[in-house]
């Protein structure tokens, strides 16, 4: 059991290392509780990696049921989410802690 978990952990590290080198990487910045860019175009039917940079001092939760992601990013910190493969379409996301201003959309095409 334990050995299995360790093996999975190692495999994960290797896989994550490999994933970093891939091309479909995007950056999303949170500043004043807004996402920049508020619209990201990504290729459909591929896995995509989005690095969320939180420039605010307050934490934010990147939340999208459409993208199946809930990710807390601490203040002055960053986090990575991996999404897809997506069918072509629009996928909205919000910053759950500041829903009024923190909005955006991923467009898969």
């Amino acid at each position, binding site marked *: 059991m334990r050995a299995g978990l360790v093996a999975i952990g190692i495999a*994960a590290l290797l*896989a*994550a290392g490999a994933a970093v080198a891939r091309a479909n990487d995007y950056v999303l910045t949170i500043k004043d509780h807004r996402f920049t860019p508020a619209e990201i175009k990504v290729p459909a039917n591929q896995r995509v*990696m989005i690095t969320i940079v939180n420039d605010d001092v307050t934490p934010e*939760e990147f939340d999208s049921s459409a993208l*199946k992601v809930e990710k*807390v990013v601490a203040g002055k910190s960053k986090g*990575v989410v991996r*999404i897809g493969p997506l069918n072509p379409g629009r996928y909205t996301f919000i910053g759950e*802690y500041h829903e009024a201003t923190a909005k955006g959309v991923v467009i898969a095409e």
Partner: protein
Amino acid sequence: MLGALIIVFREVIEAGLIVGIVMAATRGVVGRGRWFSIGRGCSVLGAGVVAMCAGVISDAFQGAGQELFNARALVVAVIMLMWHNAWMARHGREIADEMRRVGAAVSEGARPLTALAVVVALAVLREGSEVVLFLYGIMASGTSGSALMVGGVLGIIAGAAFTALTYFGLLAIPSRYIFSVTSWLIALLAAGMAAQAVQFLNNAGMVVALDRTVWDTSWLLSDGSIFGRLMHALVGYTERPTEMQLVVYITTLFAMFLLMRIARYSPRQRLPAAAE
């Protein structure tokens, strides 16, 4: 203020459902209160620690630390719930009989209580750390913080009231049926948790097989709505499940029932030693 209330309430009811069901499942077992207090106490502290370490956790494992943390918490909870259900399948009838006879608490079962204390602790830990982070964000941003803070605290109170409602609602079920009802609920709870765990591993980039979305019922019931959240916590509803999530969900349910069946028909079932 209302916004803060809703955000916090949404986080709390997920943990609240789990706590309510698990407490109803252990109705009449001695020492229950103490174990649940331990579970809750540890987890409230833990939620604070997790929230403080959010930056560190998030940065770990190439930014996938939070996903791995959540997935691990869920998997442990699933294992504990399976253990509990298997144990109840073996001893549930004895406990129900005894409860009817003496009309009050019975003495068996410290071990599944530790298991369930862990489940409660992990549920509160996961959702609680998000509440702590949210409230911390309000305090850190300063302006108009107090109204939001009041909203947040009201959200926690409303969530606790909801937990009590779940608990007493389940207690209204006659004791003859309560163990089978809670066993079913826990089986569905565990399957949903397992499906959620595998999605966290997908987000972390660890499990990428069978990652196509099978259906989209967001038009019918959105994950973001309160009812969607409830169904998510209760039976693992998600508006766009992946193939892998469905496979894991069904496998977990199947494994759970297999385990309960094996436990029930064990020839050692009458030995008092089996309780330990």
